[in-house]
């Protein structure tokens, strides 16, 4: 049956590529491939979008300020530029943060230098300095971050110099640092993630050796942004198992979490795309190994917990983890069975982000649904094909522009948590370190994998294959729904969630069941528009 569903996909390329100008068609051809887990094909990814093609991609600033730094509550994030960038990134991602009455929380605030034409002509550094002074006078923050927008790079404002200058001027131990995350850098949000990772490493990680928390097994979860409370669900679950979450990068995070993150003994990487750089750097300088993890999907969550257990190699921890999994799975299975009545055999397409289009396939599998097509907005080849292809990725001009920082062993605090031999032994037991298999390894033969899906390709996918559910973001939502197909937003969860961990899986099942049960789609045709409609006549 699955084969019947997948086989019509094989003509997709012929259906769409013709309309493009020749060169554009050639380029798009390389970004559209068919799944084959046994023989993973090469996909074109992380390359420039063709102007005018209508992409869903955003910019470097969005990846840096919006995604990675946005969820941290106690840094004053000043956007240096005209007003728009600060405005659009103000409370528009659902990265929740939980504070008590004494905690600092600047997330509901937008800070901008609101550059005017005179600043563009004469430079904006003085205005930025003054803005930092004013921010300090009003709020006395422990840290201020500066985010560069497009014109800043062009006119040559040096935000890093301003940061150093103001740190000295204000004193009091304040930490001020800048990000050269101008929107034109790179080819998508992805460049912004990288830039954010670099600065996190340079300016925050490792500044405080205080060991926080009381639990023995200490880990960080990287690439988890607490959309809809995902990080809360993960933290609750970890605590239940007796595992201390030292820092989340960066959902529900704080300065202290970043600064003490190096005291953890394992890094779990959720969104590989946005945060793998930090994982690598922390391993090099502090000796903390990292593993790819996934808390999206009940089975994936169980697998991830077992990985942690195995890593720490403590039997009582492993037993506790099994106990928690058994307990949680009862409710999960009941919910899945319930939802499955409505969802089994239905089809889904996922085009989102740099990891979610992969992770969420887990949840659809658990619902008995079939993923027909998937792709990332800003993933790289390794997110599709696995990290093994990294050495063969050609570094183009757009990637070369992004700073690569050299990281060395910390002279005093480098402490390999596992010896080489231990790592080898764990690897032999099935744990994978520093690895990510990518999305394609888990996609069925004959499915469609498309990078940086264009608006036109999206329309064609729906017109040709009528999936039961399409997963993407706010920009796509209403286009798809006008066509009578429900769209589930996987950037902001349609204001639902959490979807992570066992608790999240249940939420997701319920939400997808709700979508599958929604009856309004069946009412689109008015009674008089339906074929069977016969005009009534009066018989006299």
């Amino acid at each position: 049956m699955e084969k019947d569903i997948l086989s019509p996909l094989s003509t997709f390329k012929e259906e769409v590529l013709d309309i493009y100008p020749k060169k554009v068609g050639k380029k798009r051809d390389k970004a559209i491939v068919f799944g084959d887990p046994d023989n993973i094909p090469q996909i074109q990814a992380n390359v420039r979008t063709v102007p005018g093609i209508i992409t869903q991609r955003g910019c470097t600033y969005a990846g840096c300020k919006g995604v990675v730094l946005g969820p941290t509550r106690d840094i004053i994030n000043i956007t240096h530029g005209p007003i728009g960038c600060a405005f659009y990134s103000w409370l528009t991602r659902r990265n929740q943060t939980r504070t008590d009455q004494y905690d600092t929380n600047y997330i509901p605030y937008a800070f901008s230098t609101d550059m005017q034409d005179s600043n563009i002509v004469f430079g904006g550094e003085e205005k930025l300095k003054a803005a930092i002074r004013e921010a300090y006078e009003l709020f006395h923050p422990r840290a201020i971050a500066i985010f560069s927008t497009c014109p800043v790079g062009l006119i040559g404002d040096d935000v890093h110099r301003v940061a150093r200058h103001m740190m000295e001027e204000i004193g009091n131990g304040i930490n001020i640092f800048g990000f050269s995350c101008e929107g034109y850098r790179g080819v998508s949000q992805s460049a912004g993630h990288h830039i954010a990772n670099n600065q996190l490493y340079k300016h925050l990680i490792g500044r405080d050796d205080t060991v926080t928390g009381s639990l023995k097994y200490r880990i960080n979860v990287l690439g988890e942004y607490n959309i809809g409370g995902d990080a809360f669900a993960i933290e609750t679950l970890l605590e239940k198992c007796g595992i201390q979450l030292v820092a989340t990068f960066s959902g529900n995070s704080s300065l202290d979490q970043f600064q003490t993150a190096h005291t953890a003994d394992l890094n779990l990487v959720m969104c590989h795309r946005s945060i793998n750089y930090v994982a690598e750097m922390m391993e090099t300088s502090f000796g903390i190994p990292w593993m790819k993890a996934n808390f999206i999907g009940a089975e994936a969550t169980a697998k991830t917990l077992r990985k942690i257990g195995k890593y720490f190699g403590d039997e009582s921890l492993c037993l506790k983890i099994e106990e928690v999994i058994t307990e949680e799975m009862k409710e999960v299975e009941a919910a899945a069975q319930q939802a499955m009545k409505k969802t089994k055999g239905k089809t889904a397409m996922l085009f989102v982000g740099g990891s979610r289009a992969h992770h969420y396939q887990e949840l659809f599998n658990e619902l008995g649904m079939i993923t027909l097509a998937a792709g990332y907005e800003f993933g790289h080849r390794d997110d599709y094909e696995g990290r093994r292809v990294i050495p063969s990725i050609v570094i183009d001009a757009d990637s070369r522009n992004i700073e690569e920082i050299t990281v060395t062993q910390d002279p005093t605090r480098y402490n390999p948590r596992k010896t080489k031999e231990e790592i080898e032994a764990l690897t032999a037991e099935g744990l994978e370190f520093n690895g990510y298999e990518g999305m394609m390894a888990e996609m069925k033969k004959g499915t469609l994998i498309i990078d940086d899906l264009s608006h036109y390709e999206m329309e064609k996918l729906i017109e040709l294959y009528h999936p039961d559910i399409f997963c993407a973001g706010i920009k796509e939502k209403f286009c798809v729904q006008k066509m009578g197909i429900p769209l589930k937003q996987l950037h902001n969860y349609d204001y639902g969630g959490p979807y992570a961990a066992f608790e999240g899986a249940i939420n997701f099942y319920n939400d997808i069941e709700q979508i599958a049960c929604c009856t309004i789609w069946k009412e689109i045709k008015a009674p008089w528009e339906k074929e069977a409609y016969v005009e009534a006549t009066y018989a006299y």
Partner: protein
Amino acid sequence: MLLKHTTPKEIDRKSLTINPAKTCQPIGAMYAAFGLNGCLPHSHGSQGCCAYHRSTLTRHFKEPIVASTSSFSEGSSVFGGSANLVQAIDTIFNVYDPLIVAVHTTCLSETIGDDLTQIISKAAEEGKIPEGKMVIHCNTPSYVGSHVTGYSNQVVAFVKFFSTSTMKKRNAVNLVAGWMEPSDMREIKRMAKEMEARTIMFPDMTGVLDTGLTGKYTMYPHGGTTLSDMKATGDSRFTIGLGEYCTTDACIKLENKCKVKFEVVDIPIGLKATDRFVMSLSRHANVPVPDSITEERSKLLDLIADNQKYFYGKRVALFGDPDTLVPLTEFLISLDMKPVYIVTGTPGKGFDERMATLLKDIPEAKYMSGAGADIFRLHQWIKQEGVDMLIGNTYGKYISLDENIPFIRFGFPIADRAGHNYFPKTGYVGATNLTIQILNALMDYQDRTCPEEKVEFQM
């Protein structure tokens, strides 16, 4: 507390904007471009601008907002975005087949000084613009003015590129719509029809950004000012601009280009602004005001008179755009409410002058526009002395929850409630909707906060 770090203590703040009451020009240009039938807005800059504008507009309208971008890379930022725009034009016409592409600039392309006229003629010379299709443009540097300025600049571009005088005057009046909801435009057109006035509205987002669910998606819905109507604006007998900031420049341009005389009135929000609009349309379209309109007016008056005690003396804080704040403030005064704090991030003298006149009998009123006029400051004023009601976009929610103030959502963006797409705020009907919203919010607040023995069955 959501905004727990806001204190009543103001400092002399000149450089830091906190919680802006404005955004940047290009989003206004993008919004206005949807008011032309068959038009695809195009953002000449980084991808992020286009993505942000589309997301923000989508959150507000809950409708497809599709626009293209020149996708600048670092290379284009150094060497100019000419190749990107030419390529974009080629791709757009091949794949998306719009009638018109409306290009607007961004701070990036403005800073590097891309010359759109020259780039677009290059695209035309290279045969990238099919016959019968058009690429128009406007300059919308993000570091000047606000989203309101961008809207105005796009509307000026419509006049510049399309309005044509054939020397044969038609008995029609142009209605240049300022930044309002499609539902507001629909109501204004309904009133004009009721008055049997022949009008051309531009831009006109009805039927574009308020479409139904039919199972079919089309990038270019049936609505929007048609190209032939847009051309014909040059032959109209008169132009009425609705909203000083958004439409004055377009009115002037049309007068200069096609000798169409004009008058700018406020967006018809509230009693008096609607009165002025009706009078203006009646005079310039040379049509009498029908009894049906007078009846709509009388029903509004009836509602206000019946509930006057609830409005009297209530202190109101509001933020938004000048073109809506001015008539809104005036209407609150008509309700005998007291607009005490009014803030817009959009700079301009017009706002300050109008406020000075409107608020002359409310000595405690404070208003501010442009630099330093942000929602943070408004909140500080509220903390200094409280208000009974807050009116503004969804960002006001955080203040209203912290301070426990009844809150009316008005402006852009409204991302957390439904209704603005359906219930107009313009005309007498819109003023009635607005009055009911204000009244119910005040009554709900009274019910929720009064002692149990004071809960009234009848209010």
